[in-house]
Each structure stands twice: as C-alpha cells, then as structure tokens.
C-alpha cells in the first residue's frame, strides 16, 4: 500500500513537471534563439542554447527598425485605453449597482446581450466612421472603440453590488454629493476589482492584433504585434531577429502578469459567475 502510494506520487509529479517543460519549451527556445548569432538557429540538429550570447539583434531592432517607436505606441495605447475605460466603466457600473432608475434592469440586460455580438461585425463600419473623423493612423482610432466595454461594466457592477448601501446612505446623511460618494467611497473600496479589470484591459490592448492592423496603416503608428507581423514579411529568414522582436513583445506582459497574478486569476473567476 505504502509503496504503491509513493510510486504514484513520483509518477504524478513527473507528469506535472513534464507538462511544465512542454509549456515552457517555446519560450525557452525563443529567448535562446534571440541571443544566437545570425543563422545559428537554422542548423540541424537544432541548438537549444547559443554558443555565445549575442545581443546584436536587440540592438538592431531598436537602432535600425524603430522598435522604440512601436514599444512606445503599444505602451501609451494600453495605458490610455486602460485609464479611460476604467473611469467610464466604473461610473456606469456604479449607476447600475447603486442608483435607482426605471429602466435599469432592462437596460443592463440589453447591454449584456450585446456580448454575444462578435467585435468583427462592427469593424468595417467603425473603420469608415473613424476615417470620416480623420482618426485612422491616430491613437484615437484605438482609444475610441476601447473607451467602454460591457464586460468591464459587468465585472465592476458585480463587485459594487456587494458594497453595503448603509455606507452610501451614511455618507449622504453627512451631506456628501454623489460625485463625492463615488470618488471617495466607491472607488477606494473597489480598488482590487479595478486593478483586476485594469490588468485585463492593459494586457488585452497590448496583445490585440486585428483592430490595430486595420486602423494603423502607417508604419510609424504600428503597435508591437502589427510591427512584428510586418517585420515577418521582410525578415522571414532572420530567425534570431524575429525571436528578439517576439521577446520584446511578450516580456512586458509576462513580467506584469508575474507581479499581479492574483488579481488576474481572481478576475477570470469573477467573470465566470453567471447572473
């Protein structure tokens, strides 16, 4: 009995370890190949580690291929979309959670029903609209459609509903205005869920591809994923260079995730709670 238990334990830990290795191989190889000399990664049998560490591809990306610009575009857009949408979504969420008005439930249900419509349906009309407004190849082209999201409103509302009404009523009796209640009570109390949604939005905007590909046609406005896709066309053979570009794109979100895992994972779980 005891022995069978130990073998089982070793076996199951080995499987867990093995799955972990399989999950990590693409990343390990990506980082490793990005540090190889040009051409070193295209050898048989494949090499897992560089013979000597070579940073030249990173330097080339930043010095000759405008990587700084793309990085800045991605960072600025992700930050702007995150901040604006957090403000707009939390205001709407507060109204749905705590204010009283006639059509509230119907309106909220209608909003939720919009989640079934895939974003691709809106892309062409939105493109034409933003073109009319002169927002193609501008940050507005990405910020405007990202200003509010039904999912964000839903997530924040679920949390704000759990804030006791007595807190709000007490503040009101003390003469606090609704704006003051919102900014001084609701927002600070919702800090954890705001961080969660903020991380979701930041990572989502950073990783987004189809919409930036459509709106940003001028190379100076590319985000990292669009720039990578375009580099792929010209530098298909430069494996090491493409891997360095991938590292630069992936690393910031992975580092962010490492620090804020707890919030991200709790967000997935809250988001899955059915009405």
């Amino acid at each position, binding site marked *: 009995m005891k022995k069978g238990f130990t073998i089982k334990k070793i076996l199951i830990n080995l499987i*867990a370890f093995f799955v972990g290795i399989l999950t990590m191989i693409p990343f390990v190889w990506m980082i490793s190949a990005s540090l190889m000399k040009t051409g070193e990664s295209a050898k048989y049998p494949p090499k897992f580690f560089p013979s000597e560490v070579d940073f030249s591809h990173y330097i080339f990306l930043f010095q000759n291929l405008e990587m700084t610009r793309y990085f800045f575009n991605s960072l600025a857009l992700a930050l702007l979309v995150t901040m604006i949408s957090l403000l707009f979504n939390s205001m709407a969420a507060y109204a749905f959670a705590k204010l009283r008005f006639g059509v509230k439930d119907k309106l909220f249900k209608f909003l939720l029903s919009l989640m079934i*419509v895939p974003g691709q349906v809106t892309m062409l009309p939105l493109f034409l609209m933003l073109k009319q407004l002169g927002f193609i190849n501008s940050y507005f082209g990405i910020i405007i459609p990202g200003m509010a999201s039904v999912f964000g409103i839903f997530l924040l509302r679920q949390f704000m509903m759990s804030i006791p009404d007595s807190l709000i009523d007490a503040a009101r009796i003390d003469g606090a205005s609704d704006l003051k209640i919102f900014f001084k009570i609701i927002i600070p109390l919702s800090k954890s869920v705001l961080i969660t949604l903020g991380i979701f939005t930041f990572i989502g905007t950073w990783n987004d*591809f189809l919409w930036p590909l459509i709106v940003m046609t001028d190379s100076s406005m590319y985000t990292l994923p669009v720039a990578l896709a375009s580099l792929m066309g010209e530098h298909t053979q430069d494996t090491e260079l493409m891997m360095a570009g991938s590292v630069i794109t992936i690393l910031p979100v992975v580092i962010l995730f*490492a620090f804020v895992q707890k919030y991200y994972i709790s967000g997935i779980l809250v988001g899955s709670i059915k009405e």
Partner: protein
Amino acid sequence: MKEKSNFWLVFLFLSPALSAILFFFIIPVVAALLISFTDFDIYSLGDLRRLRFIGFENYLKLFRDELFFKALFNTFYFVLVGGPLSILVSLFAALLLNSKLVKFKKLFRTIYFIPVVTTIVAVAIVWRYLYHPRFGILNYLISFLGINPVDWLGDPVFAMPAIIILAVWKNFGYNMILFIAGLQNIPVELYEAAELDGASNWFKFKSITLPLLAPTTFFTSIITMIGYFQLFAEPYIMTQGGPLNSTLSIVLYMYQEGFRWWNMGYSVSIAFVLFLIILSGTIIQFRYEKRIHY
C-alpha cells in the same frame, strides 16, 4: 431611501460609457447590417452615388462561393476539434494540479498559465519556427519517437492540426483555472462516502467529478467556442490561409475581402454569418445544458 435617483445624476454616470457603446458598437452593428445589403466597394467609397441596394445578393453569393465554404469548413474543423481538445487538456491539467500528491502547485499553475497572457502574434511567429520542417525542434523531438519529419505548415493535411496544437498550448491555462475552481467546490464528503462504499477512482471521477463539474464544463465550452470561431492571427501569421486555403478562417476571409480588396458589402455579410453561427452555437449549447442539468 427607496426613491428614484435624480435623472441628471443617472445621466451623468451612464452617458460616457453608454454613448461610447452606442456610437462605437451599436450603431456600427446596425450600419454593418445595412451595408451587407449593398454592393459597397472601393468604387462607391470614392463616389457614394454608385452605391446600390442589392437585398440579399451578398448572402446568396456566399452560398455559391467555394472559398467561403472552405473557410467555413476550416473554422468548424478548428472549433469542433480544437475546442474539445482544449477543454480536455484543461481538465487534465486541473485534475493534475488539484491532486493532493503534486508538489509546487502554485508554481506549476503559473507556468501552465503563462501562454494565456502572451501576445498571439509573437507566439505564432515562434511556433512558425518550431514547426520548421528542417530546423524546427518539433520535428527534432518527434524524430526520437521514430516519426519522420512533417512539413507542418506546408502540407494541407497538417496545417490545421498544427494551428490546433498551438491554440491548445496557448489557451488551456485559462479553462484550467476555471476547472480548478470547479473541482475545489465539490464537497469532499462525497468522495469520502464513495470511498467507504469501495468505489474505484474511475467510478468517483465518472459519478461525482464529471457531473458536478457540468456547470464549469458548460461555461468553458461556450467561451471556448465563441473565441475559437474568431480564429484569425494564427493563420494570418503562420500560413496566410494556405497551403491550398487549408487554414483560411472565416475572419481571415472577412479581413481579406473587406480590408484588402475593399469588397465591403460582401465582407460585412461574412461577419454577419459569423455572428449567426456563434449565436446558434450558443443557443444549441444552452438547450443541451438544460437537458443534462441535474
């Protein structure tokens, strides 16, 4: 304190988000529907007088479009094979990390989850090289199992499976988190009672774990299906829809028609068919869930 809130107050709080959703989501959806009944293309973009209302012509054309059927077939292949496979791998990983015997659970959970947060464009580029027929490590690794090199992305038979493998690797961590939460919600007493009756592990899994996980399985199936129907970046980066259109997806076809050839009316009708497919898929799953609900 049950009286209604001041109208202007409600308006102030709701209007920023709701007007953004109205102008940049709802109106575009309605506009898309209208455009799908026209022959809006690059010529009418220059001169709107050339725009004609053509009724259901775009949708009828889709029925006769072999390339569209190819895209439809490929996308269903991806959803119907890749979706269940993703969920199985997620469930397997969740059971693994939920086992009392496994050490370093948190570390493994983080590692398994990392692909989920990474940029799909970047990982698709990495996998393109992993799949390289001569220098890719995948072929190198399977050569130890005695398997001959496979031209993963260059062979119409293997291109879609290659994309499915990438998608499973990229996404299993997400549903795994949901399954772990589902598993932890199952009362331990149920297993203890079954053990007293001498139940086997398989019996416990089949009769306790699976039925009680049904709500989680249902939720993960729906979100996975919705997400997988929108397949785009993987074929765009790795195969451009090839070889022989074997990885052309609905969204990739929509993108090419709309934003490469500027057949806008046609492109939008493709987007609407995608919407109808996702809607029907969701309704079917809800029906099915009602039937199996305990």
